[in-house]
């Protein structure tokens, strides 16, 4: 989980626009990985989660979004994992939450994957030659809808 947690934090910083830093916590509130100092991120993130949980006694918070003049803070829980992220002001909240959710789901499934669409021209299109098509015409026929 340690290496995958590091990878999740790295990927989150890479894919999300306006991201300043993020951390990943386990169910006990222990920091698994962070973009900065692990202890600092762990205590600060636990404080936010604690404040959100204390806001209502009946159930633990699933998602937190706090916007201040200096930046925005997001926290999301999924399958016993919590990701806390700090972004610039006026980021697109739905996109940040979607990125966090996607990474948490992948991490809970055991493997973090970069799901970004490839850049134009990055994936070579495999084309069959005329000889290959003549040799097996059925393979070249698109499947019926």
């Amino acid at each position, binding site marked *: 989980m340690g290496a995958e947690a590091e990878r999740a934090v790295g990927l989150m910083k890479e894919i999300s626009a306006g991201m300043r830093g993020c951390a990943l916590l386990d169910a006990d509130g222990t920091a698994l990985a962070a973009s900065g100092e692990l202890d600092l991120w762990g205590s600060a993130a636990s404080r936010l989660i604690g404040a959100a949980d204390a806001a209502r006694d009946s159930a633990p918070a699933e998602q*937190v979004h706090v916007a201040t003049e*200096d*930046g925005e*803070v997001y926290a999301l829980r999924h399958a016993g994992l919590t990701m806390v992220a700090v972004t610039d002001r006026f980021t697109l909240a739905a996109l940040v939450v979607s990125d966090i959710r996607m990474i948490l789901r992948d991490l809970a499934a055991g493997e973090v994957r970069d799901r970004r669409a490839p850049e134009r021209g990055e994936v070579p299109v495999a084309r069959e030659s005329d000889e290959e098509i003549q040799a097996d015409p059925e393979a070249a026929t698109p499947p019926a809808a």
Partner: protein
Amino acid sequence: MPPKPHRLLLDRVSGYADEASAFMRRRRIVRRPFARVRWAGGESAAFDAETEEGRELFRAAAHLIDVAGPSPARPRGQR
């Protein structure tokens, strides 16, 4: 009969002033800090900074923003 030139100017200036005040009003609303918490099942609540819960959420968020540090400088030409 065409309107007098000074009236045309006044209308235009007051139109710009209305636009500017509406923009400032929208900007104030957008820039207002907020704290929202969502629980399992889709229930959610917003907490004002005046309440005890809201105050603690804002303090915790400010601490996290301090830990994250300033926004990295964007390369020249990047928006």
